[in-house]
């Protein structure tokens, strides 16, 4: 009996020691962590060193403890340098009183000079780090990343957080492209395609704040950086990005503005939806041929002129105009990508491979990089204009 008691007591002690002596080895209180919301990577001018700038949310001020609602945006920005990225990041802890945590990072901003030098160190580090999510947005700064990190974005308090919202509404204007860490790293690792990374830049925007400041600088997401493998070789304009968005199904509710030649050349805006692009490829005599077909629907959202045509007539005309506009946009960006840069940033290689496996394996894959600029692409769009939303007829002023 006594033995049994001692034995169970020992077991209890052992379990107690097991749990208590490990001392909560992995415990990190959330208030001791510096939550990185945005990180910028630059090349130090005139040297091989990296400069890392992190934006850390400072919730002590931003959170508003006693139910006061929102207070002024507060974030802490720190910069450190190092021979490697990791060294630079470790050097950050010299100046940060909180342990830096990457799990809540929203965006990795790459400075233009670094992008032109090669982005492999950045992609490598951030895909090695288990704390970082592969869905983190990657953008190239038009200028220094450091500068863009410290500028404000939109209305939100923490600019890293607001960047996510900026990214999520990208499809509305379709002025840029989707680029997250997973996509960038897989494009980089594929021998046939190259990454296309969204660009951000500072613009002047008229804003009215409580302090009466207007004419503030804000961040704009538009355009995209074209890479040949890891080196940035140029940019697509916002206009050219629209074409890419159509092809890659990255936009749905966007806007197509057309001029109506039959009526005073006034502007008509059509809001699109249910947009879908289909890419069909075939290989004829070793030469791939690509046809892109874009379908969708649209509503007339704004009509600057009054007409007295019937609604069916208007719809028909508008559909033709929209089709032409979309085809033009797609052709424009294809032209730039194929002829000007000659790199497959659209991931067409994969589509061709999947649809023409035999030809791909029997030699096309080896010639792909050379063939790509000369692939003939036919673009067709067929939109149907559904209704003019609420107004069946345009505004009509009767005098």
């Amino acid at each position, binding site marked *: 009996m006594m033995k049994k008691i001692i034995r169970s007591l020992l077991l209890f002690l052992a379990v107690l020691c097991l*749990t*208590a002596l*490990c001392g*909560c080895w*992995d*415990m*990190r*209180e*959330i*208030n001791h*962590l510096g*939550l990185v*919301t945005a990180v910028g990577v630059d090349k130090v001018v005139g040297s091989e060193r990296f400069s890392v700038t992190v934006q850390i*949310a400072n*919730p*002590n001020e*931003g*959170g*508003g*403890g006693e139910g006061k609602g929102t207070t002024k945006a507060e974030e802490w920005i720190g910069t450190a340098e190092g021979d490697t990225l990791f060294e630079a990041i470790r050097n950050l802890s010299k100046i940060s009183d909180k342990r830096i*945590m990457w*799990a*809540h990072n*929203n965006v990795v901003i790459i400075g233009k000079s670094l992008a032109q030098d090669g982005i492999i160190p950045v992609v490598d580090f951030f895909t090695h780090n288990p*704390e970082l999510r592969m869905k983190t947005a990657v953008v190239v700064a038009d200028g220094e990343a450091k500068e863009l990190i410290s500028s404000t974005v939109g209305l939100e308090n*923490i600019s890293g*957080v607001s960047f*996510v919202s900026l990214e999520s509404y990208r499809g509305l204007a379709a002025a840029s492209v989707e680029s997250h860490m997973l996509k960038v790293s897989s494009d980089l690792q594929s021998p046939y395609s190259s990454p296309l990374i969204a660009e951000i830049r500072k613009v002047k925007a008229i804003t009215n704040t409580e302090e009466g400041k207007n004419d503030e600088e804000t961040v704009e997401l538009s355009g995209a950086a074209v890479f040949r493998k890891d080196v940035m070789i140029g940019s697509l304009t916002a206009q050219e990005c629209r074409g890419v968005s159509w092809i890659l199904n990255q936009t749905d509710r966007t806007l197509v503005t057309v001029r109506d030649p039959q009526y005073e050349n006034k502007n008509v805006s059509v809001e699109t939806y249910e947009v879908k692009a289909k890419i069909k490829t075939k290989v004829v005599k070793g030469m791939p041929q690509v046809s892109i077909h874009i379908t969708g629907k649209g509503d007339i959202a704004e009509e600057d002129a009054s007409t007295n045509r019937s609604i069916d007539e208007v719809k028909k005309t508008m559909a033709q105009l929209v089709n032409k506009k979309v085809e033009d946009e797609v052709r424009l960006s294809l032209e730039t990508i194929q002829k000007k840069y000659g790199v497959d940033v659209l991931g067409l290689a994969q589509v061709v491979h999947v649809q023409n496996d035999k030809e791909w394996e029997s030699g096309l894959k080896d010639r792909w990089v050379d063939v790509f600029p000369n692939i003939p692409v036919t673009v067709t769009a067929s939109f149907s204009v559904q209704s003019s939303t609420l107004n069946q007829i345009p505004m009509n002023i009767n005098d």
Partner: protein
Amino acid sequence: MSSDFISKTLSSNESTLKKIIGESFDIQCRHFKIPALNNSEAFVVYVSGLVDGRIIDETIIKPLILYPEGQSELTLHRKENRVSLLMEKGVFTAAAKETTRMGEAVSGVLEGDTALFIDECTAVLVLNTRKYEGRAVSEPVTESEIKGPRDGFVENIQTNAALIRRRIKDPGLRFDKMTIGARTQTTVCVSYIDGLTNDKLIGEVKQRLGRIKTDGVISSEEIQELIEDTPYSIFPGIHNTERPDKVCSALLEGRVVVLVDNTPFVSIIPAVYWEFFTSSGDYYSHFIYSSFIRWIRQLALFISISASSFYVMLTSYHQEMLPTVLAMKISADRAGVPFPAFLEAVIMELIIEIMKEAGLRLPKPIGQTVSIVGSLVIGQAAVAAGLVSPLLIIVIAVAAISSFSIPNFRMSNAFQLLRFPVLAATACFGLLGYLACVIVVLLRLMSMRSYGTPYLAPVIPFDKSGQKDVFVRAPWWKMDWRPRFLKAKEGRRQAPNLRPKPPPKG
């Protein structure tokens, strides 16, 4: 005791009685003469608090004294037969029995019977004159329902048996009486429906009750602890209710119930885990709503054991699992808090437990003070002082509220207690610790059984027809069969195709 038999002389009987039950103030002895028996000396003995005095007056003493002297019929007979003669013609009491043993007479008296001793007789009449002073049948406190009957069991076993009988008029309904407790002589009834309930189950219950050799039984919980399958388990192995309707539906399903005198709680055997999350109200509301509520209860259960653990887990280990904005909010809330999240949570959990206990113990008028002091002063002030984060107060409060939505008190207690080991494991190992703890609890539940029934039946082992009354409550016309795990003698409980339909056309 030299001899248990009744002696022939009245005075020696009286002195024997006094030796056995003493001269307590509530033991009354009334001497008189019976004219019809040649003015024989006689006395009645009873306990004044347990009897209805009017019954003694009207049905025993009055007829005996007023019986005319000249009635030769009574006197003619031999003296030994007088007692049975009185039984036949002398007293009016409905329930009566004759005995020659002193012990039987004494135990009758102590239960509220009146014993009639007559000179020169070796037998005694034990006449039922019991009266039960007790609480009237009222609404059950621990299991109140919005719809459904409002009566609850009381302390008196006779009333309780009557409450069941009134609902089930089946002639097979049995109340098998046992007496447990050498000193308390408590009446314990094993009730079941003969011809429906599995005989093995009845036998097992009786056998387990029979092996109880104890001094006294005060409550049904005592009996429960003595006959449970898994005495060390924190989860109740026997269901226990105050509601007669619940007991009756258990009987109709083929279960055995145990009634214990002086307790308003009746045990239902066997019990399975899921029943503790159903309430009789489920059967009185619309079945879709009842099913919804059952899910809500499971959710509440999850919240009550996991809320504080999740708080610790998310703030101390897995910050990446929080949405960014929430992470910042929590970080801001915790900014000034000097304790680690675990300590913070344990302190608040303990305060909640103390408040619950204090609220229970305090007299009602002061109880309000506790709730004000507890909720306002401690909650508000602790946050204002920066000792705990406001989010934790919400978490703890939600967990505490959730724990009350488990209908059964014992089950609710079990899970309230389980919060602490879960919290500790989570604080040590994060999500892994939490999961390990949950798995241990699940294993425990799976290994339990109650009178041969697996505790998680009918989910584990899975029985398709049993699912109609676990996570959802099927409409009545669908529940054609009794729970299979009870192995009742009659499986079917109603005719098939009871679903109401419009009459055929034409």
